[in-house]
């Protein structure tokens, strides 16, 4: 492929330049007449011959085809090398893994999986593996640890692998008890009995003490034990508690003013840092994570200005709050069929800033438990 160049020369008489080019056996392929000279196209291999023509300043202004591009790249080498470098970094950052995060509450399982992943090349500062390779590794790890792992998912999230695991819990079925009673775990009044096997020793509204047999595994007919079974069922009783709660009387009421400011935030561990200085004195925040840069989450923060008004509960409201708190406390530990029957304030004491309340609570809850016994002697 011929390489052509465009040359520009300043001359008063253009024809003289052309004659000199002719004398040097330079082929001029195209000529453009300028105001003060000439621009002509010639073979690049003949450029050296121009040096022999004295008295004129020949300037290369343009090259043809790919050479023009190469020449342009040569001139703008800094931009092009930066662009190439940028592409390299982009490729590197989009294909490299900087962390492997294994999510599970059990440390032993986490360590086990981390070790297995490391063995199969899923580790920090390595190139990302493709989907098929990851699928193979998942299958292999599940095959390697069939008793420990139920399910495994390796998710590529930006520059990290997030590994989620489901632990395999092998439950050994409890051996079926042959002989057992249902005994009372707490003192209370029997309110509900549901049993399928056994001989009831109590009736509704009976008061029972802790350890009393509620449903017996000994089946008696005419004062003679006719059979030994394992009593099955549930007995619910009314149980009483006294509980103390403390309520602060002072509180702050926040009211939004409608003024909103925006900010950015980065977090390191549990510590958050605002990028710009907050312009509001009192505000509440709403956050949304934008992206994560080298494991550092960058969040968009919406700050809403609020006015803070200090307030004091009156005695009645404080008491209502205390009873609400008691409700919440009991609901957390009560089961589906269990409920609070009643609450009664026994004592209340108001200090400078708090109110101490003692509450009597009556609850319906399960009070039975299976306890095995031997043929002649009961087990406690």
């Amino acid at each position, binding site marked *: 492929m011929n390489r052509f160049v465009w040359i520009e020369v300043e001359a008063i008489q253009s*024809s*003289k330049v*052309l*004659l000199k*080019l*002719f004398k040097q*056996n330079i*082929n*001029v*392929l*195209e*000529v453009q*007449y300028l105001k003060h000279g000439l621009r002509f196209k010639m073979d690049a291999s003949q450029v050296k011959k121009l040096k022999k023509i004295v008295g004129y300043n020949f300037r290369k202004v343009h090259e043809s085809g790919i050479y023009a591009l190469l020449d342009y790249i040569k001139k703008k080498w800094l931009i092009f090398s930066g662009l190439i470098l940028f592409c390299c970094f982009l490729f590197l950052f989009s294909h490299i893994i900087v962390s492997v995060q294994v999510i599970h509450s059990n440390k032993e399982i986490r360590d086990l999986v981390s070790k297995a992943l490391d063995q199969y090349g899923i580790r920090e500062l390595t190139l990302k593996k493709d989907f098929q390779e990851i699928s193979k590794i998942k299958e292999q790890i599940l095959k390697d640890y069939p008793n420990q792992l139920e399910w495994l998912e390796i998710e590529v999230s930006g520059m990290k692998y997030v590994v989620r695991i489901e632990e395999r819990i092998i439950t050994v079925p409890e051996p079926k008890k042959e002989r057992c009673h249902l005994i009372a775990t707490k003192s209370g009044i029997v309110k509900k009995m549901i049993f399928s096997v056994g001989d009831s020793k109590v009736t509704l509204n009976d008061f029972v003490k802790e350890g009393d047999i509620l449903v017996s595994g000994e089946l008696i007919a005419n004062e003679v034990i006719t059979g030994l079974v394992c009593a099955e069922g549930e007995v619910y009783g009314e149980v009483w508690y006294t509980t103390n709660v403390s309520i602060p009387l002072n509180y702050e009421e926040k009211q939004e003013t409608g003024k909103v400011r925006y900010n950015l935030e980065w977090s390191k561990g549990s510590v958050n840092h605002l990028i710009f200085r907050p312009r509001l004195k009192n505000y509440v925040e709403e956050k949304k994570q934008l992206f994560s840069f080298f494991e550092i989450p960058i969040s968009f923060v919406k700050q809403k200005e609020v006015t803070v008004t200090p307030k004091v509960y009156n005695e009645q409201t404080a008491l209502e709050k205390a009873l609400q708190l008691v409700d919440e406390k009991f609901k957390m530990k009560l089961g589906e069929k269990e409920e609070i029957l009643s609450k009664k304030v026994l004592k209340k004491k108001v200090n400078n800033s708090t109110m101490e309340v003692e509450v009597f609570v009556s609850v319906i809850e399960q009070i039975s438990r299976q306890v095995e016994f031997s043929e002649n002697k009961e087990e406690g």
Partner: protein
Amino acid sequence: MQLVNKVRSFLVDQNYYIDIYEDNIHIFHYIDIMKLQNEEIILQMDGFRLILIGENFRVKRLENREILVSGLLKNLVFER
């Protein structure tokens, strides 16, 4: 272009030839340029001189044996 010239020289058995168009004069196989000006161009051909007289002559292409000139040709002289 060289290939075209070779084919032409093979096909056209002439020492030179001159093509005159409305605004262009195309001359092949000239030997030397004696004069090159806006109003006059003198070329040394094989055995004679070719004098082009006109206005506003401009060289469009200039090669070893070929010249393409644009301009208004008024007179063409073969000087032997």
